[in-house]
């Protein structure tokens, strides 16, 4: 019975669960996935965590692993992430980014730009729209993109910049929010990279999974969750 353990960035939560489910139908075996912030997972893999594949929200982490010779494959860019402005309080579709200036938006959640890839992009987008200074006092920071989503879905923050993949997930849709897709030109691309790590040595199942990610089914699922092909 083949078996792999995957470490994946939290923005992949729903997409990768679906991919794994379909994968298992054609490739019987066990696929366990541990989600977390890309930085933490990178740290753990660097210190010999038993993960076979690493899906990062930011391509730089797999690149660093490769430099450290902790990988077994090339880096595979499985998609580009997008960010959205999400709110329960106001429909951001109407005014786009300027929604953030509304007096009824008291708190805006973004992921921590210091270490979360989605946070960095959010910050860039704010700068692009020259909002940085004007909303600075409204910002609150989630540890990763999931926590940021919790800030807005619970209503603790009035609006937030989260991953499109999360906004499209059934669980977040249930929350009755609306979102505005932030134009791509406002920030650097969110290149999502995956790599097989040293731990998978001799594990063909890991290779099979990554190959499957490249296939049509997986791509359709990824697209459904808003990950466009680069």
């Amino acid at each position, binding site marked *: 019975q083949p078996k792999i353990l995957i470490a994946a960035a939290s923005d992949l939560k729903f997409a990768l669960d679906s991919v794994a489910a379909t994968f298992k139908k054609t490739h019987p075996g066990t696929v366990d996935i541990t989600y977390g912030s890309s930085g933490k997972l990178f*740290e753990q893999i660097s210190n010999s965590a038993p993960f076979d594949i690493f899906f990062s929200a930011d391509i730089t982490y797999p690149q660093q692993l490769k430099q450290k010779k902790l990988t077994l494959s090339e880096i595979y860019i499985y998609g580009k992430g997008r960010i959205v402005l999400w709110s329960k309080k106001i429909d951001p579709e109407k005014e786009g980014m300027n929604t953030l200036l509304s007096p009824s938006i008291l708190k805006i959640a973004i992921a*921590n730009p210091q270490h979360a890839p989605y946070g960095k992009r959010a910050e860039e987008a704010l700068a692009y729209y020259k909002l940085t200074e004007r909303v600075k006092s409204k910002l*609150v920071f989630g*540890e990763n993109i999931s926590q940021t989503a919790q800030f807005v879905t*619970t209503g603790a923050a009035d609006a937030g910049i989260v991953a499109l993949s999360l906004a499209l997930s059934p669980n977040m849709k249930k929350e009755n929010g609306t979102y505005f897709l932030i134009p791509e030109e406002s920030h650097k691309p969110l290149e999502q990279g995956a790599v097989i790590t040293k731990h998978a040595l001799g594990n063909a199942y890991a290779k099979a999974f990554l190959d499957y990610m490249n296939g049509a089914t997986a791509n359709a699922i990824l697209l459904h969750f808003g990950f466009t092909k680069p």
Partner: protein
Amino acid sequence: MLDLSPFYLTLKLATVTTAILFVISVPVAYGLAFARWRGKVIVESIVGLPLVLPPSVLGFYLLLALSPLNAFGHFLEKYFDLRLVFTFPGLVVASVIYSLPFMIQPIQNGFRSVPVALKEAAYTLGKSRFTTLTKVLLPNMKGALLTGCMLTFAHTIGEFGVVLMVGGNIPHETRVISVTIYDEVEAMNYHQANVYASILLVFSFLVLISVYLVNNRAFKVDPYHD
């Protein structure tokens, strides 16, 4: 360029939390230690529950409760113009709930370790329960009080999951030292993280040393027994 505000915020949070919890815990622990009503164990157990919830989960539920979209948070906002999420007062509320058992448990045990005879002696001298509490019971359980305050204070300093959730990591408002160090680690600024952590450790070490020095003096095994 070291930002000192996290240290300041942390110290403030730990001090305020410890003070509030002390004031809450002394009467509650007193009641729990001496009361004899049946339902007591239920209260005792509820008081212990915050301990078993993972901090970030506790934080999440607090976030829900305090969110202006929900009844309680809405009530606070509407009638008191108070929004607790992502504010320092909110952190205090969260820390108080989170650390409750660390203060109550040792103090309750302390109350029980004071000989009943002392309480009785104070009563026959006509002293009220309050005077007996402040002049006889508490001074004879200093060790327990100190244990409670120390565990609470240190625990609040190291507190992270709840604070991150309820506080939202806002610089100068809710970004305490634990969150700051964590951010630096995650950003792989290990040097900066080490600097912060070292300062925290050295500072805490100094605080602990002075507390223990004072405490040991207070506890000095009386010279009759050597």
